């Protein structure tokens, strides 16, 4: 873990993450995210985009792929309902000799090192937590830690992206945060060809016929506005393949069982 001293206060920085994710979906979306982060002058400031879509459509993967395209360190912060402002910035922890030490969150670590922060499921956070990010998301680009009294300025290379699920709890962010989280990039369910490519990328050991079968199932689900995502498709195919190894049955025979176990009985009507 790296340490840094800011205005006489020692901060422990979080480590960036490395994930085996590759974006095989719509290249235009990747370009849109990069366009949102782009600056054309040192006086220009980047956007703070948000990625919106149903669960499992690849929002985090897209954000990670775009950050890697920029060759930056990637930090991830999973927001929850009980995320407090100090969790987002600096948290005091008790050191080995009973002393108080300060741990910088992944957000602050990304700000200091000029990395990319993916704020996952941002809509789950309370307004209070969002309020602490307000100065970071506008021209000021800093955060204030109440616990340490520090004002931490973001590195010019720092970028942030917020992912949000498109369900009933989405968008519950107040107006002043809404105007700071622009633009909104919508990720829809992929087309059949893209869906097959994503499945192939994740399950390179599966036969194309099984993946095609899963894609057809998913496409029928999308047409009926069901929330079945490509992540569900991967799980279905993976489960069927594992069962095949265990039972030596044909995986196509096992697919209804896999669909039922992953998505429930009501999903069986989309199998043909």
């Amino acid at each position, binding site marked *: 873990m790296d340490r840094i001293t800011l205005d006489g206060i020692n901060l422990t920085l979080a480590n960036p993450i490395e994930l085996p994710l590759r974006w095989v979906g719509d290249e235009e979306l990747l370009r*849109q995210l990069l*366009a949102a982060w782009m600056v054309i002058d040192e006086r220009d400031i980047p956007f703070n985009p948000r990625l919106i879509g149903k669960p499992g459509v690849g929002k985090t993967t897209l954000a990670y792929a775009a950050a890697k395209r920029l060759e930056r360190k990637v930090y991830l912060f999973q927001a929850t309902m009980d995320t407090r402002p*100090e969790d987002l910035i600096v948290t005091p922890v008790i050191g080995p000799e009973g002393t*108080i030490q300060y741990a910088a969150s992944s957000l602050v670590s990304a700000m200091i090192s000029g990395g990319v922060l993916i704020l996952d499921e941002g809509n789950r956070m309370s*307004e209070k937590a969002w309020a602490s990010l307000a100065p970071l998301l506008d021209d000021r680009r800093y955060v204030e830690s109440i*616990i340490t009294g520090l004002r931490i300025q973001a590195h010019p290379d720092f970028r942030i992206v917020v992912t949000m699920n498109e369900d009933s709890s989405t968008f519950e962010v107040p107006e002043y945060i809404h105007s700071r989280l622009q*633009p*909104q990039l919508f990720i829809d369910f992929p087309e059949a060809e893209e869906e097959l490519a994503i499945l192939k990328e994740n399950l390179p050991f599966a036969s194309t016929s099984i993946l095609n079968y899963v894609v057809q199932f998913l496409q029928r689900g999308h047409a009926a506005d069901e929330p079945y995502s490509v992540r569900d498709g991967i799980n279905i195919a993976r489960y069927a393949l594992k069962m095949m190894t265990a039972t030596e049955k044909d995986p196509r025979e096992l697919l209804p069982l896999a669909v039922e176990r992953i998505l429930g009985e009501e999903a069986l009507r989309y199998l043909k």
Partner: protein
Amino acid sequence: MPDRLYLEQFGNVHALPILHYRMEFAHLVREAFETVKPDCIALELPQTLEQQFLRGVRRLPEISVLAYHVAAQSVFLIIEPADPLIEGARLALENQVPLHLVDIDLDSYPSHPEQLPDSYSVQRIGLEPFYREVAKLYREIPPGEEDLRRERGMAYRLRQLSAQHERILFICGMAHLERIRQDFDTPQAQPLTRTRREGITIFNLHPECCHEVLAEYPFLSALYETRRSPLPPEPAPGGPSLRKSFNAFELILGGKQNIPEEEALAESVQRSAHRIGPEGELPDRQKIILRLFLESARHYRQETGDKVHFWQKRAFFRFARNYALLSRMLLPDLFQMLAAARGCLDDNFAYAFFRLAAHYPWQRDVADIPTLRLSAAELWSATKRIRFRPREQVRAKGLSRLKMMNRKEEKRPGDWLEGFDDPYICSYPPEDLNIEEYGRNLKRIGARQLSEEASKSEPFSSSLLDGIDMRETLRNVHEGKIYVRENKRLKSGVGCVVVILDEDKEGAKYPYCMTWLGEHAQESDMAFYATPPTDNIVGPGISRCEYGGFLLSYPPRRMVDVWHDPDYRYALSKSEHLLMAALDYSLEKDVVYAAAKSPRSFLKQHAARLGKRIIYLPLGSLSPVALKKLRAFHILYGRDKRDIAKDYIW
């Protein structure tokens, strides 16, 4: 000679180097025509197409598609106004100058996927430096055999023409001009080429396909076309609106007016044509985008009642600029602008933007020649392509994937008014569920706010209460005490909810005041003020209204008409009216009042006298997207409309 124009001269040939299908070059053709005053115009098109091509040019401003088959492939040539070759042909016909198509006709020609600079740079730096750079780029690309054959053929024809005419204006793609110039100086043999081509057909392009297959999007083409002739007078403000409305008496009398959507869009085109620069000047593409944005914002406001904020406008232009720059262009194309409209505003704005961008006033689906539907996918698939025009293949890609384009439209003007025969009105159930859920959410927020106000921290004495208050402990670390926090629970519940989206101080914007009783035990009674239902028709028997403010009261079936209740005569505005009713009907102590401004102290005192309390929530602390979803609601004329409403409600 105008600064932007540049002509290559060899012999008596004045050659204008162009990029195909770009509006800036179409305008430069006009300038070149004025400057050279030619007695002959030569174009980089094969003579075999001449007859049908000229028929298409004469049809302008209506757009035509010239089509023929080569083996199993279909070849299309779109005849649209903002193209330099088409402009050259038009000028020749209008001024009765002899026109010659000097290219040779080949059955196969390879496509060139080269990336050319944005034609907008001609506006800023002029044609000469632009052409020098592009010519340098082409010098590094070895020409194909087909290119060389075409260039020699054109040089041969130009030599023939130069013997017969004094000043020839030759309009030619930048890729070929340099070599044609060299070939012109050396005697050429007559090229062996096809002299006739059978099966060339000309079609009228279906208006719904214009946005996909035109190289310049229809709005820009329409502006170019409007500015070709003397400008018509600028439309006066307050013309036709895109909000489909009707007069109730007219409806009763059976008189149904035509709804002038086309007129409203055509007015936007005319107004924009005036405001993108002085008459006769090269239209500035950047200004065209600005006008498209502003006119779309106006339409968006008419239809949805939502205003485009300055920060949204700024975000749109910044994001669209970045998107274009990443594609190595100076200005965004239509797809990029639509993506920016959707990302920086919303789907409804993107729809308004698309509808205007795709509007070309002169195109009709019925014409004196057969009408053809053509999609970008057909043009660029493996078997069908446009031949003569090298252009980026990605330009229109993806437009049809934007689902918001599938909004239903009237089959004929006045069609939707026929659904208003049923005298019974009802609501749209998904919206009822939505507003009930939002009301419950506001009650939770109100209760939480009261609880937080009542919570306190104190030094630890005997009980940990609700846990250690870390922040307070650290803040007072010098005291050596541990602070604990007590979260107080709200003792009473929240009864009624009032949301004021717009105070409507003038009293004219939201004249429709109603009191509705809940249909079943799970639904609240409701009082609201809104825009009149006759003002915005969105489907057959379906009206769209916008709330100015509303009151939700649970349990249902208790509310009498609050708007005529003399108890509330002291209310100064509709919002106060609703708040007084809420205080009156609330069975619980607390009433949530969400508005931009807190209520007058008189109302707080009034609440106290009734033993009630007002929890004020500033409107800015609520989600604007959730409020926007809530703000519009629909009134259905007859219960049968509930089955079809989802197809029309957006």
